């Protein structure tokens, strides 16, 4: 069991049962794990067998090659969240779990999408690419592949706009996040 720094660890005990569980919400968990084979499987398997829904998941090594960071967005009501964190904390390869409240974190996500764009009808799309500061990565005779990096809500907006032109493929990385830095010394 490792140290847990969830925003909910205020000393109060989690409540049980679904009746007072509250609405299902996105929660961002930043999970520091040992960089070993099979660790992602352990984390994902725990979520699956205890019935927690993963909305998105991003994994990559950290500044220390012994550790990786899993940034996951889970859909869960607020009250089962501490139980979920404590179960996660029992995994031997999990070092630390931090719940990142959206207001206290910087988040980024990457979106790739391919949108229908006949050569004579691309102007509106290109205009939106400029407004959103997206990039055109690949140009075909009747389609464009565009990338956009930014806050997930911005990506949502851009994806919705592009939908109107006819999307043929969408791929998102899932968000990564780090806590906001303090401004005072």
């Amino acid at each position, binding site marked *: 069991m*490792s*140290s847990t720094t969830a925003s909910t660890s205020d000393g109060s*005990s*989690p409540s049980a049962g679904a009746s007072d569980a509250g609405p299902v919400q996105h929660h961002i968990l930043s999970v520091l794990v*040992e960089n070993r084979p*099979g660790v992602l499987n352990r984390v994902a*398997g725990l979520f699956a067998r205890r019935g927690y829904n993963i909305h998105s998941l991003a994994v990559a090594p950290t500044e220390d090659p012994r550790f990786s960071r899993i940034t996951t967005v889970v859909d869960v009501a607020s009250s089962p969240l501490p*139980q979920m964190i*404590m179960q996660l904390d029992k995994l*031997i390869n999990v070092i630390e779990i931090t719940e990142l409240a959206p207001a206290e974190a910087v988040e980024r996500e990457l979106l790739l999408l391919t949108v229908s764009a006949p050569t004579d009808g691309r102007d509106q799309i290109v205009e939106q690419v400029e407004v959103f500061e997206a990039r055109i990565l690949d140009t075909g005779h009747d389609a464009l592949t565009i990338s956009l990096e930014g806050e997930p809500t911005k990506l949502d907006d851009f994806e919705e706009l592009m939908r109107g032109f006819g999307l043929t493929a969408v791929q998102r990385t899932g968000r990564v996040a780090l806590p906001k830095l303090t401004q005072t010394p």
Partner: protein
Amino acid sequence: MSQQMDGGQALIKSLEMEGVEVIFGLPGGAILPVYDPIIDSPIRHILVRHEQGAGHMAEGYAHATGRPGVAMVTSGPAATNIVTPLADAFLDSVPIVVITGQVPTTALGTDAFQECDTTGITQPITKHNFLVTKAADIPQTIREAFHIATTGRPGPVLVDIPKDIVDPRNPASAMEWYWPDSVDLPGYHPRTTGDPAAIRAAAELILASERPVIYAGGGILKARAAGALRELAELVDIHVVTTLMARGAFPDSHPLCLGMPGMHGNYTAVTSMQKADLLIALGSRFDDRITGKLDGFAPEAKIVHVDIDPAELGKVRRPDVGIAGDCRLVIEELIVAIRELGGAAAQPDRQPWKSTISGWQETYPVTYSPAEEGELLKPQYVLEQLRDLTPDDTIVASGVGQHQMWTSQYWEFNHPYTWVNSGGLGTMGFAVPAAIGAKVGRPDRMVWAVDGDGCFQMTAQELVTAAAEKIPVKIAILNNAYLGMVRQWQEMFYEERYSEVYLSPDLPDYKMWAEAMGCVGMRVESPEEVGPAIEKANAINDKPVVIDFRTDSREKVYPMVAAGRSNDEIMVDPTLNQGGRR
């Protein structure tokens, strides 16, 4: 001084360094190289007849001794055969280390002969598992496996060992021996000492309570906290219920002991929890077999919950005070805090509560109706005889079902580590191998297994192991010719439509089967034969004994709280006031 070794030698040497005295196992292709150095090791190896037996023996050994049990089997089907004991040990927090062979690292993932994804299969049912890929990692991994299995909340750990890293004919097995002086587990720091503020808050709740009950679970035994529990209970003069996993953690003969709560708990244990204003849960986990319908469980009770596993606090029932920590350490601190707050003198007068409890005990004892002339034996009578004719510190193992509940109800457990059973997983067939493991760990004690006829048929082959290894366990089969607990549910909840539960009392012939396996076999059909047969079995110390007790299939386990019902709806023996007796 460096010493060159192969990985197989290093594995056995690592087990020796961990103080392992016995391995329960069965060799096969992938684990073959590890079996060679066993010949030269002081570690005793017990050759089982089925890998499931090895796992339950390791569990029985751990239950009885508190030391980690060790099982070793080969890859593929051997690994899958030991899945059940791993799941059993996981749910009952039993410290065992299971070593499995695996196909060579070069063949992993190719669907090789006897390959299966052992670490994948066992991931959700082990506390942790390892796939070792380098011979040099073996000592470090074994050290860590034992550390994880035995610290914090104990549990099973599996170590999967590919053949090439232990095979002296393969260069990949070459290594230089070392023994690590520490573990490298940056994410594993079980907290053992409780939060002092929470302990003080718990002490205050205890001293203010008018109707408190201590709800002692298996964590008391895991934490070696039976002595501390008794000191606490006596200090504050509070009654104790002992769950199925905690039988023996508090002496049944103690005036404060209320016995087992839960689905087949006695009326007083169940009802005292229901009516309590404070439950002091120590190493227990509010299992559904204890709470019954959760909404209706102990509705007026505040909860103090102590557990080594923080995830248990609030998992089922929100505690008013939750304390993550080792039960023994926390209870000791709780005693100090209670004394500082004035001790028992600071408590309200609990005489009305005590009178209520003793009233329930008088009105609703656990009873049964003795057999009439010509009827088959009553299983409860057999258990009373067995209890009274065996030493007080006898270790008793059981399978799962009616016989298990009757044993828990009718045995008098006065010593910790005398009750070995499968609580969480409910593994039929647990008794015979678990009793063998317990006897190997405690050869000084008499060990009886109480088994059902259905259970016995699942793992009886391990009596061949016991006979060959001269492990003199004694098995009492309560043979009612049925899958008795299933029959009971069909009788009570399926309108007596008995579907696929009849087994026959005579097929197999248990006496002949026992004899064929190198045991002494007996059959007992009348009450006057029961005592003499038990005494005859007690006197046999060079081979296992099996007694086939022919019992009444109509007998049901009472009291009972039906599944999904509130504990307030407990059903007692319908013949309670018609001459039934305890």
